[in-house]
């Protein structure tokens, strides 16, 4: 039990055993004991995934999650102590994963046992675990999408776009569906929820002219493209608008940009007020990882309303990209934790295959993007609006389909062209063999997966 672990947190080790012996005197049973011994021994020689050769880290995380959910915070902290010996944000994929899940659990512990939060904090500090909380801003200070605009996070998002195919895959497959839906149209209006930097649109603009010039025999007719972008930061919206206008000018494309400043949770209300529709325009609604923001209990009731509103706009096509993961309301904390662990094990694994361990990009993506998502998913959803801004929930494609169809949408299966293109793009940017495109013929949706684990689902819908 006293074996020295090959950990990057060497400086903690002196005090830990004494303190543990002091508080954890009641013991936590054989299960925890075996988990620890195993975990400490071989963690840093970690293997490919959290399932295999993870040196018991998975068991330890699950043990800790169980302790957190039963408010057994002494046991939870003991688990965290042991986890901290092997887990590291600079280690291999498994160690990094364990690190961020430890942090998520520590934060969850504080929020679940809110009355004792200060006691827990000091306990964590005594165990030199306070870094788990301080690595990032504490939960109340960040509003999910506002967060992305604080400097470093924007950079991290761009890095994620560049390094992993998840964002780009969604963008380009959505673009292809849009192109096919507005073929032969002269005026196209795209409503982009959460437009961010507008990375999705330059490729679409480039793809528009050849498609249209070939279908219309008279080359004098020009195409009008209008984008209404929503987002929580007016300055970013303005920057994005300017950048897109510049880009459109180089293509001699007749382009307009409108901004609607709103958070993604109030987007429908804002659009109802500010969205300008024009006669003769083919409307497209683009929802790239936006709809899930209506899944936490506080907003859930707004989801059908939001979908019905979009249905009422009669878009030619509605594009939806969401993480493929199921966080159902009926799930227990532990079930959700396991689902999330498996999901992010695949994500961290893919990053490990794509970037070297010392890559600052990788660190940035994990710390500023993935860690946020993980703690948001692990957090319990209390249903209150103010304290649970950080809560993140996803649902699987099957459930999205149910919701979309309930709102009157019909699935539009991807064309062969779209599938072939998505596969080529995967190859173009991500030579790592692990990224795969799965096409579910039965449902007509595209899934981007890491090996056999689907991570992102892209679907397109019409009225």
């Amino acid at each position, binding site marked *: 039990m006293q074996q020295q672990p090959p950990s990057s947190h060497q400086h903690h080790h002196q005090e830990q055993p004494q303190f543990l012996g002091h508080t954890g005197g009641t013991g936590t049973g054989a299960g925890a004991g075996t988990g620890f011994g195993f975990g400490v021994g071989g963690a840093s020689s970690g293997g490919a995934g959290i399932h295999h050769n993870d040196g018991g880290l998975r068991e330890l995380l699950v043990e800790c999650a169980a302790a957190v959910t039963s408010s057994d915070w002494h046991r939870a902290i003991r688990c965290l102590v042991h986890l901290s010996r092997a887990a590291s944000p600079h280690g291999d994929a498994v160690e990094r994963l364990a690190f961020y899940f430890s942090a998520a659990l520590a934060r969850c512990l504080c929020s679940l046992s809110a009355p004792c939060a200060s006691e827990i904090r000091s306990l964590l500090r005594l165990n030199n675990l306070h870094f788990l909380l301080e690595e990032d801003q504490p939960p109340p200070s960040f509003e999910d999408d506002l967060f992305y605009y604080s400097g470093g996070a924007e950079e991290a998002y761009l890095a994620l776009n560049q390094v992993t195919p998840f964002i780009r895959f969604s963008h380009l497959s959505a673009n292809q569906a849009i192109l096919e839906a507005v073929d032969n149209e002269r005026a196209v209006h795209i409503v982009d929820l959460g437009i961010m930097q507008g990375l999705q649109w*330059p490729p679409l603009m480039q793809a528009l002219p050849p498609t249209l010039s070939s279908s219309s025999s008279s080359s004098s007719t020009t195409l009008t493209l209008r984008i209404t972008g929503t987002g929580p930061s007016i300055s970013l919206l303005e920057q994005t608008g300017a950048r897109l206008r510049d880009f459109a000018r*180089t293509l001699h494309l007749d382009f307009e940009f409108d901004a609607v400043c709103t958070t993604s949770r109030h987007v429908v209300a804002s659009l109802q007020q500010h969205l300008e529709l024009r006669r003769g325009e083919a409307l497209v609604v683009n929802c790239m990882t936006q709809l899930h923001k209506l899944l936490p209990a506080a907003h859930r009731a707004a989801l059908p309303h939001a979908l019905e509103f979009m249905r009422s706009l009669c878009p030619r096509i509605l594009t939806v990209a969401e993480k493929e993961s199921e966080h159902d309301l009926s799930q227990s904390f532990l079930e959700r934790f396991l689902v999330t662990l498996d999901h992010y094990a695949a994500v961290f694994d893919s990053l490990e295959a794509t970037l070297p361990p010392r890559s600052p990009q990788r660190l940035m993506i994990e710390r500023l993007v993935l860690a946020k998502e993980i703690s948001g998913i692990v957090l319990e959803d209390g249903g209150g609006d103010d304290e649970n801004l950080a809560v993140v929930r996803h649902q699987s494609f099957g459930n999205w389909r149910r919701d979309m169809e309930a709102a009157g949408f019909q699935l539009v299966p991807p064309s062969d062209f779209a599938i*072939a293109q998505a596969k080529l793009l995967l190859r173009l940017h991500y030579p790592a063999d692990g990224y795969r495109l799965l096409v579910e013929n039965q449902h007509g949706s595209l899934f981007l997966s890491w090996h056999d684990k689907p991570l992102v689902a892209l679907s397109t819908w019409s009225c």
Partner: protein
Amino acid sequence: MEDMDMLEAVYERKSRMIPVGPQPSVGGGDFQQPMMQWKEEEESAMGMDELLAHAGYNVRASDLTHVAQRIEELDSLLGAAAPADILAQDTVHYNPSDLVSWIEGMLDELVPQQPTATSSSDMESVVTTITHQQQQHLDFGGIPPPPPHQQQGYGAAFNPNVLYADQMDLSKNEVGVVASHSQIAASTTPRPASGSSSSTSPHGIPPHAAGGMTSAAAMPTIQESDELSGVRLVHLLLACANAVQRGDLAAAGDMVAQLRILVAHPSSSSSAMARVATQFVEALSRRIQNSCYNGGGDRQYHHHQSQQQQQRQQQFKEESSDPGNTNNGAMDEILHFHFYETCPYLKFAHFTANQAILEALEGHKSVHVVDLDLQYGLQWPALIQALALRPGGPPTLRLTGIGPPQPHRHDLLHEIGLKLAQLADSVNVDFAFHGVVAARLNDVQPWMLTVRRGEAVAVNSVFQMHKALVEEPSDGGNPAAGGNGGGGRRSSPIDEVLRLVRNLKPKIVTLVEQDADHNSPVFMERFMAALHYYSTMFDSLEACNLAPGSVEQMVAETYLGQEIGNIVACEGAARTERHETLTQWRIRMARSGFQPLYLGSNAFKQANMLLTLFSGDGYRVEEKDGCLTLGWHSRPLVAASAWECC
């Protein structure tokens, strides 16, 4: 003998009758260097591994300059070094059958002051004798660096390498890889330059920061350009194919012009996708030209035309559009040898087939191997040497090699037969070679193969059988072969070939094929399948120890580019690269009265051992129902199977 359909060049020679001494017919005329590689020093019996190593026919380093020269030529043939505006003008109009002189004319236009090295025959004779250093001058003569004013104008803004090439004193003898690299970079610069001035593409922006993250503040368009060009490349490539399918040739031609600019962008040249795209773009371009000749769209060509017209067109296509015919035989030979040498696919095919043949013919005193496509005979030295080491003495070996007529050169089959006979003689194998010239496999008649009583026959087909999948015109419009068709209706060529093979009662039929579906009559399907297949193939080239941008890599890509050109640009009888999947072949073979012969674990081990000769980690040999596949990561690319008569 000149008759186009079939003729039999028969020369059968016992090995002991081969005159020992200097080669009678080698070395003269346009005969190329690599044929001389045949190792003749191995007089004594050696260990198996050593022998196999010797069967590798390494190309001498001194030949590389020569190859480089030819690649330069080919590069210009394919238009890679030609300014886009010239190509754009001529895309539709020029006669593809006169490709060489067109290119040469273009070169003249570009460098009127340097008329050297535009005639290929001149170059050949020079190249073989000059030294490495002199070669540099010639290279720059062949593809001149752009005039200085061009470089200052825009070239420098696009390619950092150009600056390097510019600074380099071209008259100095800076020998070696570095020099030739920058030279290649220099030769490609005019294209993005002229393209950016004439098109609306957003590439007028400053050079991107290569790799790495630009800071968030500096993120606008500059950072996007690199990625965007990749995205645009893929989209345009598919959109162009789609336009071809629709018959919208004008739009497709526009897109080809844009694509040429994109693939020439320096940031693209490093990615395997851009390089494979280069081959597909040229293939699309050729298809568009062909379609223009047919009065637009090949749909017409398929249906609403009289038989005579159709035949005339097919003939035209066979002559003009098959890339194999626009290059001379020597070029093919160089490509073949280098592809054999640098990539594991051909060696895998040969060694796996040989292992199966050896096992199937075990114990037979008189064996006869029929090779449906002799090519350059690279497969057989290893088999001859293995037979020489057989316990109880070597058997009598007869080899029948089938090959196409050689319009540009004297009898290739004969030369290869001589070489093999000499080799067999040196290891004391009683050997006879028999060459059969046939333009198409289904032209071969049983009597040409002269199988004798008591012989154990093996039939070998490596990347050949798919050529017989060509659909014949339904009423047998081939007057030369008119005699047979007993019931008036001719069966399809592949059935004829398989029937012929079966009638030989072979102990084994070894079949190696690309494991791909490139035979869809729907152009777009075929295009997509080929794009995926060859992009995997090109990825795998990077693991073959081929330095990016090296001559070896270009050779391998050009070799594969010929197949791509055939799949994409040709239709009807001219489309011969009709690859089908292993599953399809299984069904076809079973239907034709063959049953699978399981390739043993020996073959598996050998194939895996072969892979260790190549550096790539990504290559994978897999055994599937007794067949072996060689693939790249999870994608099987080449499938080897063995069959016997039911």
